């Protein structure tokens, strides 16, 4: 399966052949796979080096002069380290930019806490002019990037090296619209990216108990598909949110706010509760953070009590 990061390189290469306004800047990350773009567009490709805040800030200058910057590096360095630059230079100044990170919550599992990121949703969601796009497959990235990159907003693409295992028809993938992966009446699961695999496993488990699960898959968290979520939870009355973000201000919080006016519903969620300090495999860290199938089923069973 093609990695989303590889697709990023291919997508910008293709766009760059037609759209001479795009400028790609990387912070010494993905430099190898960006070479086709670099060779085709030597004046519009920059490996800026290891100075993320300045790279983001320089992109603001490029943006203000009418070009379309695409800035790429590892998530915590692009978003957390450079946050004042994003806030002031793009948020306050209302300048458009495409920020493409790599590495989601557990991707760099063996590298330790400096490389994990799960607060980026809280940080990037606060701007009036931002979009939070979290493609779960290479194809989703390609379609969503093409839909968004020219919109005069802060388009943030969060990409992981771990895709989900499913394919959707292309016309179903629309910026800001969730996907009803599966219809059901007993439980709603809201999930993003490769947590779709986990949601699907829960659904398979529940089938044995003759219960059906409605899975709402979000490749865009901002704008969020409010109607799809509310309609589903109104029907099932039970919702589990698989939230790969910070407990204090992640996807669960966003969904709870959307659902606060519904009566007689039960909500459970799993989020990142604390700093992830450990090393190990992606699965090790994921399980330790509470996303093992066993723990997910405990939450599900709580909803059915």
């Amino acid at each position, binding site marked *: 399966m093609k990695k989303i990061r590889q697709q990023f390189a291919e997508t910008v290469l293709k766009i760059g052949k037609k759209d001479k306004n795009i400028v790609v800047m990387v912070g010494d990350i993905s430099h190898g796979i960006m070479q086709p773009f670099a060779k085709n567009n030597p004046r519009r490709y920059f490996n800026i*080096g290891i100075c993320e805040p300045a790279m983001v800030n320089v992109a603001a*200058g490029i943006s203000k002069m009418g070009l379309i910057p695409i800035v790429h590096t590892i998530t915590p360095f692009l978003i957390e380290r450079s946050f004042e630059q994003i806030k002031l230079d793009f948020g306050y100044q209302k300048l458009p930019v495409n920020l493409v990170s790599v590495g989601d919550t557990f991707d760099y599992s063996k590298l330790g806490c400096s490389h994990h990121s799960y607060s980026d949703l809280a940080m990037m969601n606060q701007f009036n002019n931002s979009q939070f796009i979290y493609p779960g497959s290479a194809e989703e990235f390609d379609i969503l990037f093409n839909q968004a990159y020219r919109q005069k907003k802060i388009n943030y693409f969060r990409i992981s090296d771990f895709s989900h295992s499913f394919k959707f028809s292309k016309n179903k993938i629309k910026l800001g619209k969730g996907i009803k992966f599966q219809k059901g009446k007993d439980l709603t699961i809201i999930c993003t990216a490769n947590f779709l695999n986990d949601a699907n496993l829960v659904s398979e488990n529940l089938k044995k108990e003759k219960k059906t699960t409605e899975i709402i898959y979000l490749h865009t968290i901002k704008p969020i598909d409010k109607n799809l979520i509310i309609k589903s939870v109104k029907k099932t009355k039970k919702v589990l949110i698989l939230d790969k973000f910070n407990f204090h201000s992640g996807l669960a919080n966003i969904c709870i706010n959307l659902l606060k006016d519904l009566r007689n519903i039960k909500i459970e969620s799993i989020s990142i509760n604390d700093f992830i300090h450990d090393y190990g495999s992606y699965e090790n860290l994921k399980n330790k953070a509470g996303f093992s199938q066993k723990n997910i089923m405990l939450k599900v069973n709580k909803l059915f009590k």
Partner: protein
Amino acid sequence: MNIRKNLLNKDLRLKIIETIINAKEGHIPSSLSIVDIINFLYEKKIKIKSPNDDKRDIFILSKGHGAMALYVVLNKFGFLSNTELKKYGDSKSALGGHPDMTKIKYVEASTGSLGHGFCTAVGSALALKIKNKKNTVYCLTGDGECHEGTIWEAANIATNNKLNNLLNIVDVNDSAKQLMPIDNLGLKWKAFGWNVLKCNGHSNSSLNQAFRKFKNFKNKKPTVILAKTTKGMGIPFMEGHGRWHHKIPNEEEFTKIKKLLGFNEKN
């Protein structure tokens, strides 16, 4: 206290102080150290027809707290109305203690957090190179601002991308010296690969000489001018540092200021 000899832009200085007193907000000494440089830029160097003109030169005031100096110069050259200037600090005003590009057409960047405007200038110069344009990007930073890490990150980016269309002027009013001294600021810029020039930031002829040298450089390096200035220039009791950085003069002090600028009560 006597009027300083050869003091430039007395009218702009008075307007800076008057407007700040009326609003009870602003950085007078920082504005007085740069007003001659900004006036020189708009009078002699910057070519601009409209805010969206593709051929315009770009000026970014990176030390945003000197905003009032920019406002009075924009006002002088017809880019900002008297009515707007008088509303400074008011709830309905586009003008505040730091400039906001989303509110004022001729302001190129919203600055205030030091180190940002300079990086934006580097990005603007890079964009002009990408677009094959001949415009020049001018930036004005503080010497204290040179404490910021992003200044040096972006200085390196500018050198590596051969941005000889970029001129950064450092307002050397010795702010840095009283906070955390930077020895040999010129050598540091040189070490980062920049052409380094020095001048007196309160003298049009000295500024002119430095700008001429910048235009005559044949290499592909970005250029920095270290412009020696005095914080609070023209008002001796404000000059230097300390309590006047963000202080508003009272009525008695304002009377003295007017005399020092050569304006009597009738003016």
